[in-house]
């Protein structure tokens, strides 16, 4: 059977909060392996879109299909499983579990996805992102730049076919912004993953194959 060429399919997606429509996206498709930028000012619905794709929020209307499965039609438990197995998330806050080591942050991602422990994959990812030396450091002791790499490592450790990043560069200076984007794009390519980056940061607009303006 030929795999669905679209990794992400959005149809008639609408999110209303308190009578105000914060997102209205009639149709949007992202192909397998594509790197797509969702660009828009604050409040334009970028995070809402990513939450709907990741199954963290239920939209008011519409459907989202991830890798051929309808995220919006799944029961909550199945949504959690689909997200854990097939979606890697890089959050704007780079949030890590501070009391755990870098290695344990990645192990948690493996375990919560229901995957067996894979120390070789952990080493590969840490090496690939240049943070192998930090493997045993507590996440709370990392610098912002180091935390950013760990957040990316955690998102890609399970080789998800879809990578979502919410404002990954907006708090960074130009050099760090470029580096973070390089790492994200390289890791997505290495995994063969589709990458969707939502940001209001105009500095990154030239780096993507496609762009969705909100």
């Amino acid at each position, binding site marked *: 059977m030929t795999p669905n060429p679209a990794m992400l399919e959005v149809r008639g997606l609408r999110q209303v909060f308190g009578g105000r429509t914060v997102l209205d996206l009639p149709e949007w498709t992202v192909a397998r392996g594509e790197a797509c930028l969702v660009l828009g000012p604050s409040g334009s619905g970028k995070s809402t879109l990513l939450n709907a794709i990741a199954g963290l929020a239920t939209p008011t209307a519409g459907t989202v299909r991830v890798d051929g499965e309808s995220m919006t039609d799944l029961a909550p438990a199945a949504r959690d499983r689909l997200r854990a197995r097939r979606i890697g998330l890089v959050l*704007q806050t780079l949030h890590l579990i501070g009391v755990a080591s870098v290695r344990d942050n990645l192990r*948690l991602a493996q*375990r919560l996805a229901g995957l067996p422990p894979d120390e070789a994959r952990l080493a590969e990812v840490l090496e690939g992102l240049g943070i192998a030396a930090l493997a045993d450091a507590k996440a709370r002791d990392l610098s912002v730049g180091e935390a950013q790499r760990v957040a990316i490592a955690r998102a890609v450790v399970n080789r998800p076919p879809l990578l979502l990043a919410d404002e990954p560069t907006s708090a960074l200076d130009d050099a760090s912004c470029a580096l973070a984007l390089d790492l994200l794009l390289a890791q997505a390519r290495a995994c063969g993953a589709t990458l969707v980056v939502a940001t209001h940061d105009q500095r990154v607009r030239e780096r993507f194959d496609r762009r969705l303006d909100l």
Partner: protein
Amino acid sequence: MNLPRLALAYLAARPFATLLHVTMLALGTATLAFLLLFTHQAEERLAKDAKPVDLVVGAKGSPLQLILSTVFHVDVPTGNIGLDEAEALVAHPMVAAATPVALGDSFRGHRIVGTDASFLGLYDAKLAAGRDFSADMEAVVGSEVARRHGLAPGAKITGAHGLAQSGPAHDEHPYEVVGVLAPTGTVVDRLVLVSVSSVWHVHEHHGGAAPSPALAAPGGAMRPPSQGGRLEITALLVKYATPLAAAMLPRFVNATTAMQAASPAYESARLLDLVGVGVETLRWFALVMMASAVLSVLAALTAALQSRRYDLALLRTLGARPAALAGLVLAEGVTLLGAGVILGLALGHGAAHALGAWLAASGSFALTGLAWAPGEAMLVGGVAAAGIATCLVPAVQAYLSDPATLLAKR
């Protein structure tokens, strides 16, 4: 890393607070465990020592003092009773058996009891070495007395007046140890048993008198009166001939004789009631401590939940189910509870054992921490139930938390 390990990591990340909560829980548990051990063993000990005796007949005075002195051997007697009156009572049809007790001296804090062979039968005491006393100035020692003072048949011991170790000694009247008793787990283990006539002999120069044939030393070793006067013993330990005697004999003694009758069972219960007020106060105090500790765990978990809401949201984004997050919070609380209860039980039992060792050194109550009190299972169950019920509040909050909302608030 799994979620239980993560719960431990959260606790380890704030060691002082964790230690504080565990200590609070432990102190409450330890106090309750200690009280349970103490009251259970005291009740058991009193019941065991009092069980063989239905009624004590002694001099008028405090009935509790009479029981404490003649059954538990921890107080001075109320006085003496005339041997003639005692003998008359022995002949009463409601008396199945009567054991004389003549008190006055002690050996290094262990009471010397002038009695007869029936005393051993009361407590089912058996000889571990040697033989029973059969003549004046022969002594049979309890197992604890022998162990503590290294006594064996052939040893010589000297009594001192009263119960205190510093009382005037009767150096001129040494006893020869002729037998050592096997442990019974009763008061007998801490006594020195001699014939009644031996006690009289030692106290002859204090105005004591000779024994009578009916209640004197075994083997017919009678000592003739040397100074005349009334023959006395301290008390009679009576076994009823019929159940009806329990209602009639005490009344008969108290109403028609110069003696006093006291029931060991009743006085033991009264003693426990008296002590019980203090124990109950301590128990309530410990319960309040325990409730405070459990509430402190609730406060800790609620605060931790607040400071960790982004961690919980993150775990949801990684695929953790709401129930797993509730389990994470619950695991943290249960770890605190478990550590507190285990440490508390260890402290409670340790304190009981230490106190037992100290009391044993003075030949008193043999409290041990190497035993369980029946209420302890209920204590552990109660703490676990109250603690888990308390931890469920933040656990449900974690369960209901919405990751998208939490992440959006950041």
